[in-house]
């Protein structure tokens, strides 16, 4: 059971502040942190907003695109509470390295820039929507990940594997796909920023997992595998990132929005292409996990079959 489903009070680990190790222990993550600092940009001036002229975009395309970009803002927003929780968790656990802590502070800023820019694009295209059209779909976004990150009963390594390695990896691949078809300059510019950041976020997850995996005891490995399975089965395959995968509701309208937004060059790919990205990312993750001695089983999707 995930903590999001639990009703018991969450127990947070107790910090032992000293000795406070700030030395560099992992050069690879240190490099990611340094690269992130150097790759800073300004959401006001780092995107050519003037190029985004809604008057030149057909009304139906605009409407689809505003829904697509509003949904992205909702997804990006997850990091605003999740990342500080994860950062705190790294600080609370004795013996965790300094690099993840420094890196996560930059990651959270990048997430804030993404949120603001996704919102701005939606606003430009006719107006940001502050919730899904159907309230029943809201629960999919309310994953309470910040609680899971801070729950002493949940494994930090499992969280990193699931949300930093796999999930951020998927976001990086999706951003790359969207960028590949985007023609509008402001949208392209934002997606370039997002893609670079998300590559770093995913690199962080995989590097950290690779560092930790060899020393994980069997129970800890099971925890990692179990959390990945739960997340993919109950959240990803429910349409969290790739809405067309949803089976609990009919995603036809959202899929049509993606198709139209993609055709208009406004930073999307058709729903079928998103599914292909998901399948490829899942296969690649399964192979990387296997190399670390972690097993990710096949999943069954009612429409796609085994993935």
């Amino acid at each position: 059971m995930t903590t999001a489903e639990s009703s018991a009070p969450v127990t947070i680990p107790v910090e032992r502040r000293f000795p406070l190790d700030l030395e560099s222990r992992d050069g690879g993550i240190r490099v990611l942190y340094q690269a992130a600092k150097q790759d800073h940009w300004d959401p006001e001036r780092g995107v050519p907003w003037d190029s985004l002229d809604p008057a030149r975009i057909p009304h139906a395309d605009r409407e689809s695109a505003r829904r697509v970009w509003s949904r992205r803002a909702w997804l990006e927003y997850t990091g605003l509470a999740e990342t500080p929780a994860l950062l705190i968790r790294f600080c609370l656990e004795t013996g965790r390295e300094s690099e993840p802590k420094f890196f996560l502070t930059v990651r959270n800023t990048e997430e804030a820039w993404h949120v603001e820019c996704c919102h701005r694009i939606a606003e430009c295209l006719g107006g940001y929507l502050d919730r899904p059209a159907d309230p029943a779909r809201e629960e999919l976004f309310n994953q309470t990940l910040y609680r899971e990150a801070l729950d002493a009963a949940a494994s930090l390594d499992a969280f990193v594997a699931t949300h930093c390695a796999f999930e951020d990896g998927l976001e990086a691949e999706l951003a790359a796909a969207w960028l590949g078809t985007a023609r509008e300059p402001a949208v392209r510019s934002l997606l370039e920023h997002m893609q670079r950041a998300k590559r770093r976020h995913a690199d962080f997850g995989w590097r950290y997992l690779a560092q930790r995996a060899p020393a994980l005891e069997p129970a800890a490995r099971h925890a990692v595998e179990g959390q990945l399975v739960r997340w993919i089965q109950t959240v990803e395959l429910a349409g969290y990132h790739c809405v067309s995968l949803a089976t609990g509701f009919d995603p036809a309208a959202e899929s049509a929005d993606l198709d139209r937004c993609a055709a208009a060059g406004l930073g999307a790919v058709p729903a079928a292409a998103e599914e292909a990205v998901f399948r490829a990312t899942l296969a690649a993750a399964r192979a990387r996990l296997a190399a670390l001695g972690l097993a990710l089983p096949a999943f069954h999707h009612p429409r796609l079959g085994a993935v």
Partner: protein
Amino acid sequence: MNATILDARESRFPLDLAVRQPRIRDLFHAASRNQWDPEFDVDWAALDPEAFPPAQREAARMYWSRRAWGEYGAISESPALQIRFCQEKLSPDARLYFTIRSQEESRHAEVCFRMAERLGGYVEQPQVQFQGSVATHGVRRLALDPEVPIEGVIAALVCAAEEIAFDVFRHLIEITRHPVARQVCRLVMRDEVRHCAFGWHFMADRWPRLDPAGRERVRDAVITMIEKVELNGYHSAWLAPDNPASRAEVECDRLTWEAGLGATVEELEKPVFVDSIRRIRRQMEEAWGLRLPEFSHPRIDGRF
């Protein structure tokens, strides 16, 4: 284990992302434009550790290590405020701004760590007797406690503690002779200006919404921060309870100050600290009508 805000399930919709507090959104944008990097934006080559006698070097590495511990509190604890902002659906501007504030705190920790390293090596911990003064300012616990109004945490942490730190930084820039140490203080202070501004902007919006009981709790939180954290030596070692460990830290400050490497000493900092408390009291009364009591400390004459 007491209940925390984590016990409630997330409910993020309706998700407002519009500009609601323009002055805080401006701070977010200003911070985005004014990023700096401790690795590249400090003239490290100009800091020659061999130019200082071993005793001064040793003291300075301890002083800058202590500064790193203090900054680290903002990495380990203050991000809990960000969770609280999201959970309580406070203004989108605060939610966005606080992310970059945490990043700035991490680069402050990094730059202090680099200073300590340059001066002979970062020290991982204080003596046991001094740990009580610098181990925590308690913000994480307060931020996650649903019984503590968020306004109390911001008033205490930002409008009190960070204002004191800001005044001390300004003093340090005035008295620090070594150009690299002064450059570090300047860079940090540039960020602190925004941090403090955030607190007052945030409170200007929230204070009118508080009922008398809420306002009283804000007052209590500020008093606790001043009495239990600041007057206990969290930022200034000479305010810590007197014992051999805190005396050793005070001596480090003196040697570092003599070297012009960034510290100050009790006789110089005391009037700055007292003026800072008086300014905070005046500002809180003018802005919110909140009256702080006078404080006392064994090392400061009279009440202030």
